[in-house]
């Protein structure tokens, strides 16, 4: 039995709506227990903004937009650089990741990510010929524009500093190379060199990051888990694990959830998965993961079914963007990787992330639809 493409496109919208509602529920309950209402109000506003942009981007003509891929790339650079400009950029917890828009803030790396994916899809689709000659020795020369853009983007994001987003951007790049049928030897070589670079970066990077890795390694070795000290570097992961452990099978319910009572910092954003795990238990976590898996599988099936390489690359790239956010966030919550600040798509509090993710879904559906129509048109012409 083959599921129709149209059904997959529709299911993407429904899954996103369900996820957004789940997020709203969690943020609302966190807010009420923290005696404030700011987050839930802001999130609701951003949802409406996102819906508007969703409609715009689901009707935009993507092939015409391709002409703008290079100017967009420049726009992405400007946006990324803007966070360093005093007055425009906003610094939170000594990271300047946000652009100040009056009462709202906008995380520039989110936008840059989508722009870069668009550019990569455009580039790979345009230069189909070079994809066949992608051995390591040709690679740098043939893929220079993409590598250059990626380098600039990752560099700027790294200096925000936001290592995790930089890493995700790089993973997206690798994954797109993979589905673009670049030689596996090339991909392996790049991966190995980047892993070495990463180790160097961590060892020379800021001390807080190094400390996090050290304590995480200790944790993996089975030590230091039960220490209760608010200054220790393993504080957040431990709190997350405590919350999850106490969820058990069906969870404690939103009334009895304790992690959101300021035990778990960033309960409404980075660690919202732990809140869900505590309040709705193993069942709740699994249901959420299944929704995400459905979302991703639908997404990549659409990418598979798209005939036009540009659409296929675009859908897959945006899919990767969402997938890696989910994977990194959940992995942090269950302490499979060290603590880092990545939001959970559609659920975490964070307007710009929600907006960009919605736009990504809109573009995915838009691309899939256009591909179908173009195919039908083509068949019609041949006929």
């Amino acid at each position, binding site marked *: 039995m083959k599921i129709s493409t149209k059904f997959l496109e529709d299911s993407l919208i429904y899954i996103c709506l369900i996820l957004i509602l789940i997020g709203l529920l969690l943020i609302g309950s966190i807010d009420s227990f923290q005696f404030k209402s700011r987050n839930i109000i802001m999130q609701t506003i951003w949802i409406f903004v996102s819906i508007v942009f969703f409609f715009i981007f689901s009707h935009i003509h993507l092939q015409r937009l391709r002409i703008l891929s290079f100017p967009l790339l420049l726009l992405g650079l400007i946006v990324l650089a803007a966070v360093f400009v005093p007055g425009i950029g906003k610094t939170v917890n000594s990271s300047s990741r946000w652009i100040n828009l009056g009462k709202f803030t906008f995380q520039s790396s989110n936008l840059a990510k989508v722009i870069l994916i668009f550019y990569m899809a455009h580039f790979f689709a345009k230069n189909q010929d070079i994809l066949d000659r992608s051995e390591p020795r040709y690679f740098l020369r043939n893929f220079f524009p993409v590598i250059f853009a990626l380098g600039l983007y990752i560099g700027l994001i790294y200096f925000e500093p936001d290592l995790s987003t930089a890493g995700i951007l790089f993973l997206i790049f690798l994954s797109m190379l993979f589905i673009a049928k670049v030689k596996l030897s090339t991909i392996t070589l790049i991966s190995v060199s980047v892993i070495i670079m990463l180790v160097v970066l961590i060892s020379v990077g800021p001390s807080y990051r190094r400390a996090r890795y050290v304590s995480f390694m200790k944790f993996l070795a089975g030590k230091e888990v039960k220490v209760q000290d608010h200054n220790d570097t393993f504080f957040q992961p431990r709190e997350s694990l405590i919350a999850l452990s106490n969820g058990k099978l069906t969870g404690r319910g939103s009334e009895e959830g304790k992690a959101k009572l*300021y035990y778990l910092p960033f309960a409404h954003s980075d660690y919202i998965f732990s809140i869900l795990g505590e309040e709705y238990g*193993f069942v709740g976590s699994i249901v959420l993961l299944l929704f995400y898996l459905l979302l991703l599988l639908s997404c990549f099936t659409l990418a598979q079914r798209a005939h036009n390489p540009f659409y296929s690359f675009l859908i897959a790239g945006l899919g990767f963007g969402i997938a890696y956010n989910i994977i990194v966030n959940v*992995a942090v919550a269950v302490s499979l990787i060290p603590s880092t600040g990545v939001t959970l798509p559609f659920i975490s509090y964070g307007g710009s992330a929600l907006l960009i993710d919605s736009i990504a879904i809109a573009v995915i559906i838009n691309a899939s639809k256009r591909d179908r129509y173009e195919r039908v048109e083509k068949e019609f012409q041949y006929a």
Partner: protein
Amino acid sequence: MQENNGRISSIKVIFILVFCVFIVRLFSIQLLDVYGFYNNYQRYKNKKNIIPAERGFIYDRHGTALAGNKKLYKLEFCPKLIKWEKIDSLSTVDRGIVYDEIINTIAQNTDKSREELAERISTFEEDFPYGFELVTQIDAAQKDRILRALKDQGIHGVLDYKQKSERVYPKGNLAGPLIGFYEYDNDHALCGIELVSNNELTGQDGWSEVIQYGTGDDYHFDDMPLQNPISGKSVYLTIDAHLQAILEKNLIHGIEEYDAKGAIGVIISPRTGEIYAMRGINRDYIGSSVRAGHTLPIYPINWQYEPGSTLKPVTALIAIEDNIYHANDIIDCRTRKIGGRTISDVKPLQYLTFKQVLSKSSNCGITRIADNIQPYKLYKTLTELGFGHKTGIILNGESAGVIRHPSKWSKYSLHSLAFGQEMTVTVLQLAYAYAAFANGGRMLQPKIIYKIEDDEQNTIFEPKTTVVRQVSNLWALDTLRTYLKAVVDEGHGVGTKLGYISVAGKTGTGEKLDPEGGYLEDAYITSFVGFFPVEDPQVVMAIMYNEPNYDHRYGSISAVPTFRKIVEEMIVLPHNDILYIANEANREYVLVPECIGKSVKEACRLLVEHNINFTSFGDGDFVVDQFPKPGVTMLEGSSIILQAGFQILTQNYKDANLTQ
């Protein structure tokens, strides 16, 4: 792009595998609890926060607070919450201005200096943006002044918290040792009423279930269980704060004037056994701190001494009771020698009547009387009057005094006991013995608690007047009372004689016992115990000085003047009917004079002479009739009615009855 299928499919498989890893991981964390975090944290159990109950107050009999509570507050400074209504967002400069205003306001209202506050802010500002203590232990008034001043200026960011409660004694050291002392910090009652009534004064703490937040704060929500605290009960003492103040003032005055080491005064009611005022003052502790003053021993119940002559009435009472002597029997009061012991008086005396033996306080005379009474009866009467055992007052640290059983007496003991040696008493015992003299022989249980009220002001306990036993008989005591009145009227107690009130009592001058045996040289204990008004005694008062200087070594020139001053001051107190009762008792009966036929002017002069008021009606210069009629007895001060008319009509109306 069908050729991509293979790689995208493998990506899908990879993602499915990753999600499987997540599911396994979640299974191990959430269901297997591999780290042992489940139910291991206090935060998952709601905490009960104790709401401390307020300790009960201690009042005097008229409701004047003697012990209460003060709430202390602390102010926290929250740099993050600082706001100034005049400016929306504060720049660094504005921030400085606001900080200065806050510092100034607080410095004006507390004892903290500006520099101290500024230093505190600069030290903690960075590390504690959500609040740190700025000033602690300020009272409600200071807190309100500061917060109001800041509010008027539109400055936000200084928050107040209740810190703790503190026990306060609004009257300072007044009745200090009696009230005792309570430490709020340790929840520890040290002594006095605070200790003996601790159960009543202590309230029942309440609790509220709270959710513990990660910030360290506790929050109670409306739907969570809550038990309100029940405040401690209020204890009303029988003490009269005014009287207590008068007593203490005069004792201190006396100590200074007579250069005494200490003084003790007790004022009680012979009718109910209530203690109106009671204080022992040690010269070394005058003007000490509240804590020191409140933790001293209660000397009136604790300090024992040889009472001396104040005990002579007991011997006299037995003589009266057994009809051995009568008021005018002559007694040989010359210096006498018994065995190796010479008994003499300060001023050598010759022969005195029985009544004079008491008023002149003759040692020789009283020993002659003692010779004729049964020794055991003296012991029995002394014991019945409460000597040698505790009065049963609820306070801690009471002394029983010492009195030996007749089987252990030496040949001198009878005479010694007759004038108050070879035994020790407390001032309170003495006062209650005299109360029995005053009230017809009823030995009363000392009463210090007037009533106990719960937090809704319902009286839940009101001790009854308890008569412990009956001593002697009414007739003998009435006689004794007239003798004691004579002491004041013509004897050593003459210093307390007041025109408007009749006082009875007995002076006492005792040599002070040497702890190493015998008596100290030139160390005296002087005392006066008396009651008034004699006709219907309302008050018994005992005054004692410990080692007044040589010039004031007699009770009649140290204790007696103090007694008199206290009486003079206390009878004008509010809530006091002593003077009224005394006047009622002293009023005499007069015969109504003949006014009929006299001119109104003449009748008026006549009635004023007889101390009779009158009202008149009718025109004319002559009294034509009166009611009551002449020759009737009536209380002086009451009034009669006169009818005025003309002389001619006098005869006609002479027998008319005005009452018709």
